[in-house]
């Protein structure tokens, strides 16, 4: 990733100089090239003018609210966006995920964690652009085109609801999908608060796809927010880069 031509461009948006400073060092040490913006307007301008592969967006900005910046950028671009915030309320997370945030990191945080999450969202984007309909996570293989799910070589029989859940999550592997979205998609609007429906289906599904259902590695819970699939395995050709 040290090659300047392939180094991903990350845009760091935070009004605090010290935060921008360590984010710059952290990302540069990991082979990214870094741009900075210290307020919302600058961030929107930078995102339109410069090539950007990833945005790290602080919520508390002096001019615009971070969620407004998120909404505006989402109106034309699907560049991965990771939110930084001192608030850690689950309601806030749900709102931001529904506005299109790819991930959410609560301040204070360690650089290693942010780098790991950045890799996940970048890889997800790379996969989305290849248009591959087969997703491999650990020993699980989901073929969205053929509507087949395999564990190792064994084909699974899933109920329609179980498959639908896996399908929704697999459309954005690694991305958190909120409880409400899942309930709405699978059971319909009237059941948007019946979280127990979801819990039961997840429990059954985990028994089929996880090797240790009590310690899931594929279908992961974001407590109080929703579910996500673990990041997909690297495609064999991507590893060659």
């Amino acid at each position, binding site marked *: 990733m040290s090659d300047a031509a392939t180094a991903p461009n990350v845009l760091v948006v935070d009004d605090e100089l010290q935060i921008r400073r360590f984010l710059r060092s952290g990302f540069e040490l990991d082979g990214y090239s870094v741009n900075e913006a210290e307020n919302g307007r600058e961030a929107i301008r930078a995102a339109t003018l410069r090539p950007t592969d990833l945005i790290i967006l602080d919520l508390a900005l002096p001019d615009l609210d971070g969620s407004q910046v998120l909404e505006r950028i989402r109106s034309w671009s699907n560049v991965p966006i990771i939110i930084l915030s001192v608030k850690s309320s689950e309601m806030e997370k749900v709102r931001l995920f529904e506005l299109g945030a790819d991930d959410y990191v609560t301040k204070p945080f360690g650089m290693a964690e942010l780098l790991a999450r950045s890799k996940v969202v970048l890889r997800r984007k790379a996969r989305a652009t290849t248009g591959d309909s087969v997703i491999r996570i650990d020993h699980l293989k989901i073929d969205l085109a053929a509507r087949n799910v395999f564990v190792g070589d064994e084909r699974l029989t899933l109920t329609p609801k179980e498959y639908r859940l896996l399908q929704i999550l697999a459309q954005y592997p690694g991305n958190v999908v909120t409880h409400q979205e899942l309930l709405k998609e699978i059971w319909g609007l009237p059941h948007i608060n019946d979280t127990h429906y979801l819990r*039961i289906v997840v429990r059954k599904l985990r028994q089929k796809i996880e090797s240790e259902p*009590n310690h899931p590695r594929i279908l992961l819970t974001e407590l109080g927010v929703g579910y996500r699939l673990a990041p997909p395995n690297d495609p064999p050709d991507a590893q060659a880069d």
Partner: protein
Amino acid sequence: MPRIQFLSQMTIQWLRAAARPGGTVGVLGALCLVTSVTILLEGMKGVLDLPPVVITYLIPVLFAAIRWGLMSAMVATLAGAASAAFFFYRPIHTFYVEDPARRLGLLLFAIVAVVAAYLAARMRRESEIVRRREKEISDLYAFSRRLAGGHSTSDIFDAIEKHLATVVGRRVALFDPRGPSGRSEPIGENDVPQKVREIVAAVISGHADGGAGTAIADEHGNHWLVRAVSPKTPDLGVVAIDLGQQTPETEQEIRARIEAVLYDAASTIEKIGLAHAITEVRMRAESERFRDALIGSVSHELRTPLASILGAATVLCNAPAVAGEPRLASLANVVRDESERLNNEIQNLLDATRITGEALQPKLEWVEVTDIVNAALERRRIRFGSHAVEVDLPNEMPLIQVDAVLIEKALGQFLTNAAKYSPPGSKIRVRGWRDGETLALAVSDEGAGLTAEDSVHLGERFFRGRRHVQSTPGSGLGFWIANAFVAANGGTIEAESPGEGKGTTVTMRLPIPANVEQLESISSE
């Protein structure tokens, strides 16, 4: 002339007083009784040849005296004597009595009846007073118990309001003169009319005389009396009493009674040091609010630079230049680890202010317990790098309805404590099981254990075991926070230890909703 006027006024007053207990009902009742005795005697006249019957009329007289008071007994006496003369003594059907002996008999009857009635009425009055005293004492007792149990001014005002309502026997609304908006909800189901509120406000602000009381009629013609509970201090509140629809005279009387009752109540309240208690509760609430606001804002201010420090430290730890230099690397690790710890302490302070600020409203949702356990372990994974963590959860645990984030934090506190107070390399065990109507989650370690003293004080805010104060850093908030979070979800926490150095097991129990099986079967189709 003035003397006669005075006498007649006295008589009227006496009559009114005598008339009160039974009122018109008493008089009518007395007449009914006399009539029935007359009918009875008339009926028996044909059957038996009766001796002087007049003594029978003592029965209605005594009954009336006990039941309805003196006035009604007098009426019974008069009516009894008249009926005897009219129906039974010759010449019959006139009030004239021929036989002098019978005339004397009637006179004696009247005297005996009056004396007996007087005695009976007095007995009745006295027993009534005793009964009232008894009720007053039990009311007062209930009042003082409510006061003793009160934790805030609103509890105390509630108690005063209830006490006044029982004592006055009318609808009473008490207004806290220094409350946030002034207490406005009366004890009854309907509201205090706007007009009355205005007077209350005037009394509170000192524009109207609260000591003597102000009477006012609302739009329905109900009369209200507004006055300060104690003329000496407005701190005890301003009270509005619904007098109902009364004639001026009875209203005067009720007001006099209320005066007396309020006077008693105010002096009782003063005696038990209530004014002082109220001021104290207010000061305490005020200072707690101030302290929490301070902690809250300081914590936020501390977190901002901490985010930069922690972030920078983690960059340094992983930078190749530092990683290749073991001494620098260990220093960078110290900066990172200590900022993590500082961050956790700040988080604890913030959580603690949330609890005392009463802003803790659990957001209940159905959750899988294993998800909570996994999240708690995941979040603290780095911190028990040197401990062996063993998880033992059965496959089919019932769903529970809790605030997953709060429970995760509480469980995390258990885990943090287990790691902190047990030697590196030892085992930490997390177990979950269904225990009747509760779901139990336990964290056991092989560490310092608890002394008898520790067990007693464990749940207290800022408590730290004496053995650890010097050796292990901490604020003493963790367990207290965990306790509050679990309690907010309807659960309980207990900690047990076989003794010093023998490890500790902390268990939380959370309620399993009664309908969970039904819900699980419905949604699994």
